[in-house]
């Protein structure tokens, strides 16, 4: 193997310098003594170069898409175009305050309005809001909208249940529960929704069925129209989790499939960077029934002018301060503008082609539990590794030594020792072949090496059990734990 991540022996920032402990804080007139800070914030006083070096070294101990192939299933780790970074930093984008008068922010309003219109076409749903900060935030908002809708219908007392397939992302049941619904999971049949099971499960108690399509097993739910019919037959709503929209751009859309409301992740399908965990940007798109419940403000165009509209009597109100993650919205807009209709269709086709190609090749090493034709991602089972005393986790860690990121592991839970692999459209055949070769080297390595992996990252296998058993969650805890844990 040729990969070696940086391995700086870099102390925590508070060990790099000393805090100004006994210095008097500047006096502020009129401040009551009870509320005056007695001890200055204990944090080191460093030079700018020291700060820059410290965080540059930390960055070198982090793996990103720009470092290597990042086949993390359900996360759509595609290239984050540099031009979108440039545009988001323009003064006209970054140095604009959300509480400026409308007349001075017509550009921002137009960007948001245009993006909403385009996403309406892409989703096939007429009404769009960009307010959610992330996908799960959008799911939650959608569940609040469903709740408000049934309240207005006088049915909230009986519509208490949200159904979801057992392949659903964890955020789905969590969002539904936060919105006050009970949740029930529908068992799958060969990785897809079991239509008969769903028909038996729906009733007047059902408020909503939450579905990801293609689903987290990478399979397109081919019975989607029948699913929509079953859900609508009892008066319930059908919700689209847009995490996997990348695979079907221009082929189908939530509106045509019969969904009433959808969320999208701009940080997946529309290439905005994941930021090491965030920020994301969520999108809410709704049909006629749920559209009036979208958060305020909405953006309206009157003549050539754009303005905020707060006059939506059925709205659920606000989801967060201001209007959404504008910096990400702008990046997504530039991305869509670049690709255009044909480019977006090509995105889906190439992403699906890439994943099917790698699925076919990796199928030689590990079993694929479901039908072979997948969309943007596929699932493997690492169960046979157990015969050699190896687990999926070991394989994932060994892959890191190859200079590629590990797949998503142990999800979906319905597959034993699962690995979920997604290779977006931005990976070339050369990179795909390199990934397959890396996978082969990793899986054919000795159990000893697999257990000892990774060796090329900035630290070796991290003891996550210890982290949970003896939680050390800040520098206070580290100090209290004494020098023994600090330097073993």
């Amino acid at each position, binding site marked *: 193997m040729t990969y070696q991540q940086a391995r700086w022996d870099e102390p925590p920032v508070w060990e790099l310098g000393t805090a100004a402990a006994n210095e008097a804080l500047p006096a*502020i007139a009129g401040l009551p003594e009870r509320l005056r800070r007695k001890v200055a914030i204990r944090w080191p006083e460093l030079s700018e170069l020291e700060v820059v070096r410290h965080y540059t070294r930390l960055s070198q101990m982090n793996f990103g898409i720009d470092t290597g192939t990042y086949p993390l299933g359900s996360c759509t780790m595609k290239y984050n175009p540099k031009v979108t970074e440039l545009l988001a930093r323009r003064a006209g984008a970054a140095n604009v305050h959300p509480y400026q008068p409308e007349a001075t922010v017509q550009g921002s309003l137009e960007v948001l309005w245009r993006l909403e219109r385009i996403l309406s076409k892409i989703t096939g749903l007429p009404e769009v809001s960009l307010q959610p900060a992330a996908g799960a935030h959008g799911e939650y908002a959608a569940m609040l909208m469903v*709740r408000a809708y049934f309240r207005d219908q006088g049915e909230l007392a009986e519509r208490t249940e949200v159904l979801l397939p057992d392949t659903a992302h964890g955020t789905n049941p969590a969002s539904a529960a936060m919105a*006050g619904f009970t949740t029930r999971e529908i068992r799958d049949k060969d990785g897809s929704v079991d239509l008969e099971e769903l028909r038996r499960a729906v009733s007047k108690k059902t408020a909503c069925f939450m579905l990801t399509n293609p689903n987290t097993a990478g399979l397109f739910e081919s019975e989607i129209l029948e699913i929509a019919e079953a859900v609508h037959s009892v008066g319930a709503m059908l919700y689209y989790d847009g995490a996997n929209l990348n695979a079907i751009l221009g082929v*189908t859309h939530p509106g045509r499939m019969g969904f009433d409301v959808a969320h999208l992740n701009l940080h997946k399908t529309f290439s905005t960077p994941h930021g090491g965990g965030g920020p994301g940007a969520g999108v809410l798109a709704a049909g006629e029934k749920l559209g009036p419940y979208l958060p305020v403000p909405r953006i309206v165009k009157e003549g050539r002018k754009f303005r905020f509209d707060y006059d939506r009597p059925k709205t659920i109100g*606000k989801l967060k301060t201001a209007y959404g993650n504008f910096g990400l919205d702008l990046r997504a807009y530039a991305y869509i503008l670049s690709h255009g209709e044909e480019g977006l269709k090509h995105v889906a086709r190439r992403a699906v082609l890439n994943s099917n190609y790698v699925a076919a090749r990796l199928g030689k090493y590990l079993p694929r539990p479901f039908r072979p034709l997948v969309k943007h991602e596929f699932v493997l089972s690492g169960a046979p590794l157990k015969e050699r005393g190896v687990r999926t986790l070991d394989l994932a860690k060994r892959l890191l030594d190859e200079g590629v990121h590990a797949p998503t592991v142990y999800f979906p839970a319905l597959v034993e020792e699962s690995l979920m692999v997604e290779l977006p459209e931005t990976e070339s055949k050369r990179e795909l072949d390199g990934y397959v070769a890396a996978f082969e080297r990793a899986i054919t390595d000795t159990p000893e090496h697999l257990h000892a992996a990774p060796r090329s990252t900035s630290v070796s296998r991290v003891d996550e059990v210890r982290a949970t058993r003896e939680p050390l969650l800040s520098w206070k805890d580290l100090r209290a734990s004494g020098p023994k844990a600090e330097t073993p």
Partner: protein
Amino acid sequence: MPRWIPDEPGEEAALLEALGISSTDELFADVPKRARIGRMGVGPGRDEPEVVAEVDRLLERNRPLSKFSSFLGGRIASRYSPAAVDAIVSRSEFYTAYTPYQAEASQGMLRTLFEFQSLWVEMTGLDVANASLYDGATAAGEALLFCRRLHEGHRFLVPASLPWEERSVLANYASGPGLQVETIPYDDRTGRLDLEFVRQATARKDVFGVLADVPNGFGHVDEGVPELKSILGDVPLVVVADPLSLSVLEAPGNYGADVVVGEGQGFGISPSFGGPLLGLFACRKEHVRSAPGRIVGATLDADGRRAYALTLVTREQHIRRSKATSNICTNESLMALAFVVYATSVGPRGLARLQASLAEKARTLASGLGTIDGLKAPRFDAPYLADFTIEIARGTVDEFLDRLRRRKILGGHSLKDPRPEVPSEAERILVGIPEMTSEKDITKYVRAAQAAIGAVGRSA
């Protein structure tokens, strides 16, 4: 068209051939005909220079803050961020990474988040911070649900002066589990919370939490907030704190706060028309298993070296599903990086000096505006740092701000709830001091405010 999808001669053909198919159409054979669409209607693709030109054309229709003398304040700040902050945030090892599930390959972000957590712990006087939430308002919403896990009851008390957006977000968070958000009235002269109201409300034993903000929605520092915990007893106290103010204000953990949340945008994050922002959350260690969001913990690697990992994950949605403490998955990690790099670049002394200088300018502005007939500035008789509230006696806030805008002054923002179904409120404006505001800007504002009020008086 951009070169974002690889297109080497023969490349796609080779992939198709390996799969034994002749067209990518075959890969979509499982999408039923009736579910297919024709054109989306997105328009043709463009080359990079065309995209840059088009986006720049749109952005030119904005007038950024630099074109004005700005006095916009509140939770979203417009401060100078040292160039070093964006240089670090722009490192693609950070910004193109996913959530650090694979700890060994992600020590850089994990260590950064651990430092960020440690800083917020130090600033708030609490024990544990999470790795960020979406923004200050949603952090308050999560704090509400957190309090309910700690304490029985169905009523949550918040100041009537809390910004309307936050009250609306809190109402949403409360609605799912059927909880109520009630407002605590304030003294008309000082804006201080009515502690007697809190005492009586909590005596009924059905209050599960109380929230107070320092500075409050009027920009003022409420001297009564440190008294709250002695009234509440074991009812959890949530304090919404402005990070910069904590450079000079007492850590809320030291006066009994059980949770401290806040908006972190002012530390190295551009206003960007309101997003991305940064939600801050800290609590006591004994409550950590009820806390929302990702948390980074320190541990060891297989060789006994210090290492970091996401921890206490059994609280989270991907493990606990409907029983999770929150649905949050994607958070604001990159913004947390900006926060800690900003604070470390400026340093604790620099932060305190900055806060003191903003407070000094705010006093100059307030005393200037205070001399104007028809304007009450500050509206409340209470201490303040960088923000305070003014009230106009003649005309409307919109008219007043519009007249200032014509003189290239952003005179603050209306405190009214803009939703038409909400009853009309007093004509109040929150005025703030952004870092770049000069003495000259302040003189200009005072003169323009005088003229604006005078003009309204004449036209009335």
